[in-house]
C-alpha cells in the first residue's frame, strides 16, 4: 500500500481521530494526535492488511514552537513503509509510549527523552540512555544551555585569547 492508501485505511478505522496526511514533505507523513497515538500504533501493528511489525526508527525534532516525534514503520510482509508524526507540546512534552507495541521503541524512546526531553508515558524504564543520570537539560533542544562543568570536570570552551594567556603564564 502507498502512504495515502494507508492513510485512507486508517481514516475508516479512526474517523474522528483527527489524522492528517501531510504531503508537503518529500515522503508523505501521517500526523497523529497524541491521544490517539497508542491506538493507531496498535492497529498498524496488529492489522493483517497493514502488518507493520518493524519500527525502523524513532526520532525527535525540535521545530521551534513545538517538538515532533517521528516513527518510521516498515512491514516486511507487505513491503510497504509508513511515517507517523506526533506533535509534542514544548511546555508539557508528554506522549504515550509505544514500547508495548514495538520493543524497538524502548531504547529509542529513552534516547528521545535523553536528548530532546520528551517524556513517554507508560515506558517500562524511563531513564537517560547516553548522558549521565545527573545531567542537566536535554542537549538537542534549540534553547539548550550547556553545563559549565560536571563533577568538577570543566566543559567550557577555551577561547583562543585565553590560550595565549595560558602560554605566557606557563
Amino acid at each position, binding site marked *: 500500500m502507498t502512504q495515502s492508501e494507508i492513510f485512507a485505511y486508517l481514516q475508516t478505522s479512526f474517523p474522528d481521530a483527527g489524522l492528517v496526511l501531510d504531503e508537503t514533505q518529500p515522503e508523505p507523513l501521517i500526523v497523529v494526535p497524541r491521544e490517539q497515538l497508542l491506538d493507531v500504533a496498535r492497529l498498524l501493528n496488529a492489522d493483517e492488511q497493514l502488518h507493520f511489525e518493524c519500527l525502523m526508527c524513532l526520532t525527535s525534532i525540535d521545530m521551534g514552537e513545538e517538538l515532533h516525534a517521528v516513527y518510521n514503520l516498515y512491514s516486511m510482509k507487505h513491503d510497504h513503509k509508513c511515517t507517523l508524526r506526533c506533535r509534542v507540546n514544548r511546555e508539557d512534552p508528554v506522549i504515550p509510549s509505544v514500547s508495548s507495541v514495538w520493543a524497538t521503541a524502548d531504547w529509542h524512546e529513552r534516547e528521545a527523552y535523553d536528548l530532546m526531553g520528551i517524556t513517554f508515558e507508560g515506558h517500562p524504564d524511563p531513564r537517560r540512555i547516553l*548522558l*549521565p543520570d545527573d545531567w542537566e537539560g536535554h*542537549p538537542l533542544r534549540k534553547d*539548550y544551555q*550547556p*553545563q559549565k562543568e*560536571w*563533577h568538577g*570536570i*570543566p*566543559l*567550557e*570552551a*577555551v577561547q583562543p585569547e585565553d590560550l595565549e594567556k595560558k602560554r605566557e603564564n606557563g
Partner: protein
Amino acid sequence: MAILEGRYGPNVVITSIDKIFNWSRSRSIWPLTFGLACCAIEMMATNASRFDLDRFGIFPRPTPRQADCLLVSGTLTAKMAERVIRLYEQMAEPKYVISMGSCANSGGPYWQYGYHVVKGIDLVIPVDVYIPGCPPRPEALIDGYLRLREKIMKETIARKDS
C-alpha cells in the same frame, strides 16, 4: 652466551644511576592504550606489524598497574574523563601521558560547541607529549614516543635545590 664467552675477559661498565634508570625506562615504554575514537585506529595500526612499535620496546598493556605511559587517543567526553582520571591515578610512578590527536589536545572539532567534550585532556590530567593531527599518522605517533624517550633521558633522581 657462547659467542661472547672468553672473548673480552673480565669486564666493568661504569655509568651513573640516572643513565641506567633513564635508559631502561625510555627503552621499555609500556603504554596503557586508551582508545576513545578514530585515533585509536591509527594507534592500533602503529602497534601492528607494519610499523612495529615492539622494536622500540613499546608494548601495549591492558591494565594501568603494568603501564608506564597513558596514551589517550581520541575524544574525551565528560563521562569518560572520570575514568581517565581514575586510570591515571591507578598507574604506578613514574608515569607519563601522551595526548594523541586534536580532540585530546584541545577538543578538536568540538572545541566550542561540544557540550559533553573536555576541551583538552590537560584540563584533567598532566600531559607530557602532544601529538597534533586528526588523526595523526603512525609516523607522528612514533615521533611522539621518541620525543617522550628524549624527555625521559633528561630526568634525574636527584632532588632539585629548594
